[in-house]
Structures are given as structure tokens and as C-alpha cells.
């Protein structure tokens, strides 16, 4: 898994790339939780994620929970079909705020 952190407006954008599985999701978790400490609104860009498993989804859930507790906006961006299938299976597709692109963010 590769990652990249950038800024877009008020959002801190974490782009995850490749496979987010049992072996690298601990890294994804650390990155997300560390970035959330800065207090910026957060977008997790999943458009380049080829595969995400339950451990990756669990990291997103924890990030969402921490963000909510600290009144930080937390949303997903460019969710691929594969990732969406996993979110739907866990019935999380209606829990997360999901944007197709930056243009959809108001």
C-alpha cells in the first residue's frame, strides 16, 4: 500500500493506493489517526485502492469515530466498485459521507 497526504481547501486528503489488507491496514490506521490529531477535516481518497478488506474498513470506521468525537468532517472520496461492495456488505455505504469527486464537495 502506498499513500499520499495533501491539502484541498479545509480538507486534509489522504490518498491510499493499492491493496489495503490485513498486513498494511495497521499503517493506514496510524496515518489516519495521526493526521486526525491535527484537527483538519478529512477526506480518504480510495480511488486508487484496488482492494480493501475488513481490516481496512475497520480503520475507516475508527477514523470516522475519532473524527465525530472531535467534530471533524470525515468523508470518503472516489470509492471504487470493489471497495463499495465491501462497504455495502457491512451496511456502511449509507453511514459514511461519500463523494465521487472534489467537485461534489460543497
Amino acid at each position: 500500500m502506498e499513500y499520499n497526504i495533501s491539502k484541498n481547501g479545509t480538507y486534509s486528503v489522504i490518498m491510499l493506493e493499492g491493496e489495503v489488507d490485513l498486513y498494511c491496514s495497521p499503517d493506514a490506521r496510524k496515518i489516519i489517526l495521526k493526521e486526525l490529531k491535527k484537527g483538519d477535516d478529512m477526506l480518504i481518497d480510495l480511488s486508487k485502492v484496488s482492494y480493501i478488506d475488513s481490516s481496512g474498513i475497520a480503520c475507516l470506521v475508527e477514523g470516522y469515530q475519532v473524527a465525530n468525537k472531535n467534530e471533524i468532517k470525515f468523508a470518503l472520496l472516489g470509492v471504487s466498485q470493489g471497495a463499495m461492495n465491501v462497504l455495502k456488505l457491512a451496511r456502511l455505504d449509507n453511514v459514511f459521507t461519500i463523494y465521487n469527486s472534489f467537485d461534489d464537495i460543497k
Partner: protein
Amino acid sequence: MEDTPIALIKNLTTHYDDVEILSDINLHVNTNEILVIMGGSGSGKSTLLRHMLGLNQPTSGDVELFGQDLKSMRMQDLCNLRQKIGVSFQGGALFNSMTVGENIILPLKEHTKLDDKTMQIMMRIKLEVVNLAGFENLMPDQLSGGMIKRVALARAIIMDPALLFFDEPSAGLDPVVSAELDELILTLKGAMNMSIVVVTHEIESAMKIADRIAVLDKGKLVQIGTKEEIRNSDHPRVRMLINRIPENIQPDSDEYMERLTRENNI
């Protein structure tokens, strides 16, 4: 060129003592396929499953999973390979001294270094998937048969296996719960790209979930094909299974008497 099958069985023959249980079985499981292994009681279905998991050694023949021959694998490699496999056993095989949640999390604790919070969320996600949200603190003896099957399934899929084995998902369940499990199996295939091997004697369930069906009878693979091919089969044993026709064997008198009397020299 076709993809390498996720599971491949070549000329598998096995015995319990002198009794031949499986005879020259050849079959494969494709990636993202649901293969249903059907047959009556004692047809060798569960034995075949145990061989596919590398739990039993065959008399002859080979089993390959993910392109690797189980017979020639070192124990550590076999352990690593099994992390890509989930198994939901017929009776659930839950640890009665552990809560539902502890049972489901166990494979993660044994095989990963995930943070405890991640594991807890994963366990709760799987409970949501099997429609048992909030049951994590119950003990197995507080669950119904259908719930035990679903907890066993949640544990089998906790590591998001590429290959899932499900032994008799419908056995002992009412038709509604059974249908729910069928739906769940189809959902898992679609959402997680799993390859799934289901062992069952329930023809209705097989016809609903299978991409292909393998029919076993007395340890022999009598037919393998699509649902349509099985439905339209003219093989007498397959027709008996589909039409639920009881077997009426007329024993040879001499053989029968020999069987009845040989053990204790009556």
C-alpha cells in the same frame, strides 16, 4: 488461457481402514465460483472436504490449493496457506468457553498483529454481516442452531479468506434461516470475490447458490456440471437425489448373511 483453479483435486482415493470412502475423484474450483458438493449421507462429501483442507492424508492422489500441492508442503507453509482459507464446520465447532465475540476474533489474535480496536470493529462488522449485531457477549450455549451456524460463518470470514468452505449450511435449520444463509453465501461471493465450496444434501439450496454442482455417490463423483446440466441429468443416481427417491437395495442373500455373521463368528 484459463486461470489456475483455486483448488484442484487429482485422482483422489482414500480409505478408512479397509473401506474405500473416495474413489478417483477429479474436480477443481474456479476463482470466484460457488461449487456445491452434493450427495446423500455417507457419500463422502465431508471426507472430501477434509481432504481439500489437508486435514486428512489420501491413500493416493493430490490436492492443490492456490496452485500448491498440499502433500509436498511443509507444516509452516500449510499453516500460512490456511490463513487464506475459511471453514464453517457442520456443527459450528465454536469454543463453548468463549463468548461469540472471542470465538470470531480468535483467528485474528492467532495470525495477525492488528490493534485490538481494529479487531473488535472487524468482529462487529462480521456480526452485522451475519445479522447477529449485538450478540458478541453471549456464550455459544445461549444460541439457537441457526445462530451457531452464523457465528461459525462470521469466524470463517473474519480474515476475508479467498476460499471459503461451508459444510452443510442448511442442516437442521428451518427453511427461512436456511434461505437467509443461502443469500449470505451469494452476497459474500459478490462482495468479497470469494471462491466458495459448499457441501450440502439440500438440492433446493444447491440449485439456488451453485455455479456448478458436483454429485458424489458412494465415494464416486458421478457428475459435475452447471445447475441446468444437473437438473437435466439422466444419470440414475443424480435423478434419485434430485427427485428425492429413496434407495431400495435388495441385498444378495449370501453376502448379507456373511456380513451379519462374520464379526463375532456366530
